[in-house]
């Protein structure tokens, strides 16, 4: 069978719509930051989730409540429950060695970037993370980031951090600091805006994209970014900004 068996070790409520799941697998796994897994809950469904962390058999997911499966996870899963995982799937972030990296996340997009921060530390990089949230009560994982890297946050409607979107914050930061690489994960508009900006400035950029996943194996075509024919499950989810360039023609 293609699934590994996972046992929920702990569930942490991060915000009213986001939880963190710590899972222990029956076998070691070694994903790259940016790669994802298909998580199957028998009788419920199967969804893609980015690895938020991984160490031998221990992995973390950060899950926003959206619909059927994520709702079931939030409402029904308890420590000790079994889940099934296939992966790691897809292509993760290209890690730079040395230099300075900027991480830009929107909402649960910080999941793969947190994992990336942990890995970049050993690469002798300077890392700065920009985390964007909608409101004060949606803020999470800031302490976790701060323990690893220099972190700034933006809140659209709230009192903490910078007021505004993370894109605004990004523009402010990029005006005064230079980076060798920008890593992004957020809603598609955010990703595209960041890519456009970076390409203009000539800064390499990679962003993690989402599409409806079905096979997760690069054959069904369901996750294609058209008309480029880039499969998020296989060619992505992390995609080099320059690959996306043709989508940005309209400014």
């Amino acid at each position, binding site marked *: *069978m*293609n*699934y590994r*068996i996972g046992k929920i070790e702990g569930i942490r409520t991060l915000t009213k719509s986001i939880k963190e799941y710590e899972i222990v697998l029956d076998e070691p796994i070694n994903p790259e930051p940016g790669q994802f897994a*298909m998580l*199957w809950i*028998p*009788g419920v*469904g*199967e*969804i893609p989730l980015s690895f938020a962390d991984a160490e031998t058999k221990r992995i973390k997911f950060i899950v926003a409540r959206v619909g059927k499966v994520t709702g079931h996870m939030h409402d029904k899963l308890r420590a000790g429950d*079994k889940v*099934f995982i*296939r992966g790691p799937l897809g292509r993760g972030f290209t890690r730079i060695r040395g230099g300075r990296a900027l991480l830009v996340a929107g909402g649960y997009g910080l999941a793969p970037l947190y994992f990336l921060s942990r890995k970049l530390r050993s690469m002798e990089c300077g890392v700065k993370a920009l985390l964007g949230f909608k409101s004060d009560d949606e803020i999470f994982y800031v302490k976790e980031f701060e323990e690893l890297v220099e972190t700034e946050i933006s809140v659209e409607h709230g009192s903490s951090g910078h007021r505004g979107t993370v894109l605004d914050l990004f523009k402010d930061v990029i005006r005064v600091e230079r980076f060798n690489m920008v890593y992004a994960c957020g809603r598609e508009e955010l990703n595209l805006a960041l890519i456009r900006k970076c390409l203009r400035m000539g800064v390499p950029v990679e962003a993690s994209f989402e599409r409806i*996943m*079905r*096979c*997760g*194996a*690069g*054959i*069904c*075509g*369901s996750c*294609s*970014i*058209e*008309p*480029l*024919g*880039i*499969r998020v499950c*296989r060619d992505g989810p992390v995609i080099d900004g320059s690959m996306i360039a043709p989508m940005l023609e309209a400014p």
Partner: protein
Amino acid sequence: MSPDLEVELAGLRLRNPTILASGILGSFYGLMKRVEDAGAGAITTKTVTREPREGYPNPVFVDLGFGYLNAMGLPNPGIREFSVELRRAAREIRIPLIASIGGRNEEEFMDVAGRALDAGCSGIELNLSCPHVSGYGLEIGSDLQLACSIIKAVKSISSKPVFTKISIHQARPDIVSRYLGSGADGVTAINTIRAAAICVESMTPILSNIIGGLSGPCIRPIAVAAIYEIRRELPGVPIIGVGGVDGWRAALELILAGANAVGVGSAIARKDLQIFGEIIEGLRRFLAERGFKSIKELVGYAHRS
């Protein structure tokens, strides 16, 4: 001179005998373009139906190691929306584009085929064999009379070649010759085989639809027998061999059995699009080493022994 891989298939000219199998990446223009760039000789689209279909919920795909199980549920945007992709593909892609058509009755097949032809496809493949969607595919194909009347009807509006895609249950020379008698120009053998997997840990079926279709290397011997027997009884019929092609040896095995061209399907899960180049290179090398001038010489070669 480098050996010739070009094949002719019911009037279609393919630069080499590899064809993207139906249901694999053939849902969007962009993906089809990449398949052309990867070297394929032709492309079959995802099976398209008259109405849009959501498909089944996840899980829809299981990697079994020796093969794959899938029950996508024929998700597709319906022929109206798909015509846009098809039209663009027909305009910008130079290799033959075979539109795979699904339906629940003659009328639906006619309607979809008509629009696909309109959009500029180079040929039609009638999906009479998908084993896990109720009302479609094999349920239609199991009724020989109905299948023949669908073939006749579609053929009546198509100046392009019409292939019937068959399951193992139709992989009998007597049935195939009825299809040919109804006007089919060729046959695509085989579709996936009805199958299921149960997870022992959770004691539940894995696919949301429970029943799916088996593909991959493990069905290759079944495809080889089907192709071999059809070729033996019907020496002239154009055959697209499909099932477990995961490299040049597998492609050659189907060709030796009698396939004029071979579909490449789920092996893309393991080898990605490079598989087309790998097959093409492998075949070319084999032909050169053995002193053959053209891949056509090898079609059905195993029948000589």
